[in-house]
C-alpha cells in the first residue's frame, strides 16, 4: 500500500496571552501509520491536539485533512470540534471524558451520531428509514465493542468500568465516528503493565485494519513498540522527527528529556 498523507499541519502557532504554547509546528501523518508525539510535560502536546480538533482556535497555521480514498483535501482551520470530527478526526482525552451515566453501548452509539441523520420527525414517527438506521447504529456499535473486547459490559454504566476498560471504551467511541485519523491522548496513562500490554495489542490490531493513528504518550516502551514515526516537542517547538531508532539516538531529544548536563 502506498503511503498517502492524511494529516498535514503547517506552521501551527498558538498563543495564550503572551505565552507561545505552540511555535510554528509542522507535522504530517500518512495513511496506515502510527505516529507518536512525545515530549516533556508542558511541551504543548495536548495543546496541539486541542488546536487541530477545534477546541482551541490556533493563532496561525494551516491544518489539512485528506481522505486517502477520494483524495479530497479539507482544511480543518476554524472548524468547530464537531465539524472536525465529521471531517474525520476523532480523539480520546487525557483525563477520561466518557458519558458516565450512559451505558457502555450507548457511549459507542453516540460516536455514530455524526454518521447518521434521524431527527425529530424520525424520532417521533420511527419510520422505516429511522428503524434501519437505529439497527445499523446498534450493530456497528456492538461490533466495535467486540473489537475492543468490552461487549460483555454493554449494558453497564460507563463509570462502573475498571479504569483500563474506560480507556478502551474511549477508543471504541472514537472509532465509531469512522475517523480517517484517530488521535489518542496518553492512552496508557494510569494503566498497569498488563493493561498497557493489552492496549499495545489493541492499537496494533486497529492499525493492521488500516487505521491511521496519532498518539501522545509518555510510556516510551509503548511508543517505541508502536510507532512508525516519532515527533518530539519541547517548549512548543518540534525538536526532532524520525523513526524510533533515530529518535533514540538523537542528542537533542536526550537533552530535552534529561537536561543540559548529560553529554550524548
Amino acid at each position, binding site marked *: 500500500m502506498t503511503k498517502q498523507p492524511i494529516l498535514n499541519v503547517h506552521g501551527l502557532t498558538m498563543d495564550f496571552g503572551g505565552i507561545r504554547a505552540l511555535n510554528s509546528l509542522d507535522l504530517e501523518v500518512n495513511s496506515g501509520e502510527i505516529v507518536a508525539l512525545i515530549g516533556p510535560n508542558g511541551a504543548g502536546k495536548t495543546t496541539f491536539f*486541542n488546536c487541530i480538533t477545534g*477546541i482551541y482556535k490556533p493563532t496561525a497555521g494551516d491544518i489539512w485533512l485528506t481522505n486517502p480514498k477520494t483524495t479530497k483535501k479539507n482544511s480543518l482551520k476554524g472548524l468547530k470540534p464537531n465539524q472536525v470530527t465529521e471531517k474525520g478526526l476523532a480523539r480520546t*482525552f487525557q483525563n477520561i471524558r466518557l458519558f458516565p451515566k450512559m451505558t457502555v453501548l450507548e457511549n459507542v452509539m453516540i460516536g455514530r451520531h455524526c454518521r447518521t441523520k434521524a431527527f425529530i420527525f424520525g424520532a417521533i414517527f420511527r419510520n422505516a428509514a429511522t428503524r434501519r438506521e437505529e439497527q445499523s447504529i446498534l450493530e456497528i456499535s456492538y461490533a466495535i465493542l467486540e473489537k475492543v473486547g468490552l461487549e460483555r459490559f454493554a449494558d453497564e454504566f460507563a463509570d462502573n468500568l475498571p479504569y483500563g476498560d474506560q480507556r478502551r471504551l474511549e477508543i471504541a467511541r472514537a472509532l465509531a465516528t469512522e475517523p480517517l485519523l484517530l488521535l489518542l491522548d496518553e492512552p496508557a496513562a494510569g494503566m498497569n503493565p498488563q493493561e498497557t500490554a493489552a492496549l499495545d495489542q489493541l492499537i496494533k490490531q486497529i492499525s493492521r485494519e488500516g487505521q491511521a493513528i496519532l498518539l501522545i504518550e509518555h510510556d516510551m516502551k509503548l511508543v517505541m513498540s508502536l510507532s512508525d514515526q516519532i515527533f518530539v516537542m519541547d517548549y512548543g517547538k518540534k525538536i526532532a522527527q524520525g523513526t524510533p531508532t533515530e529518535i533514540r539516538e538523537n542528542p537533542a531529544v536526550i537533552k530535552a528529556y534529561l537536561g543540559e548536563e548529560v553529554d550524548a
Partner: protein
Amino acid sequence: MDYFIELFFSGLTRGSIYALIALGYTMVYGIIGLINFAHGEIYMIGAFTSFIVATVLSIYGFPLLAIVIIAGIAAVVWSSSYGFTIEKIAYKPLRHAPRLSPLISAIGMSIFLQNYVLLAQTSDFLPFPTLIPDFPFMEPIAHIVGSTDLMILVTTVVVMIALTFVIKFTKIGKAMRATAQDRTMATLVGINVNNVISATFIVGSALAAVGGLLIASHIGQINFYIGFLAGIKAFTAAVLGGIGSIPGAVLGSLILGLTESFATGYVSSDYEDVFAFMLLVLILIFKPSGLLGKATNQKV
C-alpha cells in the same frame, strides 16, 4: 439641574444598597462557584428582623439611637446565622455534586424562606419605622438629597472600607482569597476550607442585613417578597462588574443604580425592573465575564 442631581443621588443610594447585597453574591461565587439564589432572602430576613426588633423596642419606649443600634445588631446577627445555617443545610452536602444541583437547592431554599416568613408573619406590606431622623444640617438640600440617602451612602462607604480591610489584612481574609484561587491548594497549606466558606456566608449575610435595614428605612415598607427582586438586581450588578470580583460588585452596583435611576427619571418608571433584567440578559450574552472579571478557559 436639581432634578439631575436628585436622580444622581438616588441612583447612588440604590447602587450602594445593591452593592451591599451584591458583595455577598460575589464573595460566595468567588469561593464555591455557586449562585447563592437565597441571598436575596437573607437580605429580606435582615429587613424583617430589624423591623420586628425596632417596632418592639419603640413600643416599649426605647430611645431612637438605642433602637437603631439594637435593630442593626439584631439584623446582622440573625442574617448571618441564617446564612451560616443555609450553607450547612443546603449547600455543604452538595459540594461535590454536579454544578446545577446546588443551584436548584438554592432556588428551593429561596422559595422556602419566602414562604416561611409569609406564614410566620404576613403577606401584607408592613410600614417600617422611621429610624433615621431628618438631620437639621441637611435642610438646605433636603429636596435633593434626603437624610436617609446620606446615611446609606456613609454606611456603605464605611462598610466597604471595613470589608476591604478584613479581606486584605486579616487572617480569615487571606484564607478567603487563597480558597477562592485554589481550594485544593488552600486545604493543602492547612486552611480549613469549611470554616472559610462559613465565614464567607456569614460576612456576606451581614452585609446583606445592613443593606436590608437601610433600604427598609429608606423605602418605608417591607414584605416577604422584597428579597427576590433585590436579589436578582444585586446579582445583575455582581455579574456586570464581573462575578467573583469585589471591586467589580461595587462598580456594577453603582452603574446599575444610576442606570435605573436615570432611566426611570427620564424615560419611564413602568419598565423600571425590565431595565435591570434586560441589562442582565445582555451582559450575560455579550460579556459574561463582566467589566472587571477574568474570562476563564475550561481545561480539557
